[in-house]
């Protein structure tokens, strides 16, 4: 198991906490929590990844950088990974972002 931490520039606040996925072979669990209100301006998304597969730091950075460049979603992100492929990781990230930014109207 390897633990990786990252900070990514982000400006869009998460509206609510989101939890998606399961720590199951080829899948991962993602928790997103909004940051404290003061942290929004010029903020950064805090990301912690715990992965069962060691040695993929570069790929994790690339996948996460691509996601946060597009979404810019602020928050505290925790990823508990059990060997998900980059495609699965991106899908779960998008799913978590959708839940975290969902408004009452959409729900």
């Amino acid at each position, binding site marked *: *198991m390897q633990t990786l931490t990252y900070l990514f520039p982000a400006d869009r606040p998460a509206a609510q*906490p989101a*939890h998606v996925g*399961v*720590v*199951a*072979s080829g*899948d991962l*669990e993602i*928790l997103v*929590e909004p940051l404290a209100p003061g942290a929004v301006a010029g903020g950064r998304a805090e990301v912690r990844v*715990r*992965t*069962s597969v060691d040695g993929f730091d570069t790929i994790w950075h690339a996948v996460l950088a691509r996601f946060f460049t597009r979404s810019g979603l602020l928050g505290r992100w*925790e990823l*508990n*990974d*059990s060997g998900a492929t980059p495609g699965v990781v991106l899908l779960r990230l998008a799913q978590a972002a959708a839940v975290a930014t969902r408004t009452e109207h959409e729900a």
Partner: protein
Amino acid sequence: MNETSAPDALDWQHVLRRRGFLELDARSRAQALLDPGTMRVLCGPFDRLESPWLAPQGIVPQADDGVVIARGTVDGRPAVIASIEQRFLGGAIGEVSGAKISEALRMAAADSRAGTPTAAVLLLETGGVRLQEANLGLAAVAEICSALLELRPLAPVIGVVAGEVGSFGGVSIAAGLCTRLLVTREARIGLNGPAVIEQEGGVAEFDSSDRTLIWAVDGGEQRHATGLADALVPDDADLLRTAVRDAVAVGPLVKGSHRSERLDVLRTRLASLDPARPPAPHQLRAWWGAAYEPVQAPTRPRAESAQGPASRGRAWLTALTAGVRPWAPIPSVLRAQRDGAVYLAVVPDPDNPFHRARRGEVGLTECLALAEQIRAVVAEDAGETDKRALVAVVDLPSQAYGLIEEMSGLHQAIAACVDAYQAARTAGHPVVALVVGTALSGGFLAHGLQAAQILALDEPGVEIHAMHKPAAARITQRTVAQLDELAQTITPLSYDVRDWAKLGLCDGLLAVENADEPTAKDTAIVGAAIAEAIVRARTGPRDLSRRLDSPGALATRGASRAVRERLARQWIHEQAS
């Protein structure tokens, strides 16, 4: 309620509208069974009550430890659902996930006692005890069983095994204790999984590559057809919700009518078996039928010899009841009474007709004999204020790993034994376990872990664990050396009884001179410790709650205590999490 109306196979409109239940994750399964809009998750992922034992072993934890606890209503009736996420570590029960289930059951029992009957629905998909948390997982399963039995007279506890993992290991004992058990055709229920039996007993005992055999033995259809499950429901969320609503609406069953209390049925069912000529699974259906009622069985001559090979269980039972002749209801179960305490031990019987239970394993007939003896003591003392103590002398290699055991439902037999011990404890009998040798896995769950007080000899031959070392190493994909090294820092993994004593389950670690042949001094020391334990059990709580308040638990079971505290707080606050 033996058959939930299945949709007509030709009703394509229904088939097309059907919402599958199996494909749902743990949370969605809970949601599908509760009334819409009523679900409130307790101790959810953002409470971050994850397992403290996994990350130090290099295993990624899950934020809710793989169990969803959800309060809500079922057809307007208050209910709590415990839903196991089968994809996380195969649904295996660890310290936190186990504590979540047992504390939810205890809260439901407290509400029920206070005038709001609160049903529990257990969605069981699990391989059993999580071997990475071995002894704490085993303890958690014992506590789940005890809490389930505390709730069961007050409000129904509905077990649901939908698939695909099925219910295996110690958790299946809980399935055998439920008020009602619902299964689908995709469910499997067993104590020992096929691969474990093959590993322990060889391919001739159980060929785990034989899918047909596995489903014929463990499959939901077979369990229903042999009376070990109450309803066979199609994989359809709406039909399952209807079945759960019906089961909850019936309410608690009359005392004595639960499957795990029907020793009359277990007795005749076991008597109908000739272990030398075991029936094929389909024959068993014909013999036993779907109703859990006594069957026709030939009277077999019963050997009642109390003689047998030397074992620690025999040696200690004999020493502690010196002057009294032990009696053997069956050759592998010894009973002796002295000074107002009834001692029970499971001992080797080389002539045991059940060949997988010859080395002192807890098998089908051992469970029945123990349960019958305990129930007899409880019945005889019903009117007494000073009830006799029960002392379980524990020296057992494990439960019996065998084909006939699984086919006949060893999980149900162990449930009968667990039910009897818990009933004795709640009736006011001081129940004490004395571990003098090995105490492994399902055997210890049946005989020992329901005790109010647990004593163990401080001696290298005493080994308490969820599985013996080579098997645990294989299953967790480690070498025995790696396992030993991890056990240095991960206390619940250790096979050393001194480490086990730190988990908060041990009420006395007793140094002796000779554990195989106790000396007079040994017998005096242990006898005095038992007498003290009996006094403590008599005055202490009748449930297992004090295990979490012991000095050992304060140090090592912080996670269980956090679950208890958080769940109790969130249980009453409507806005929590």
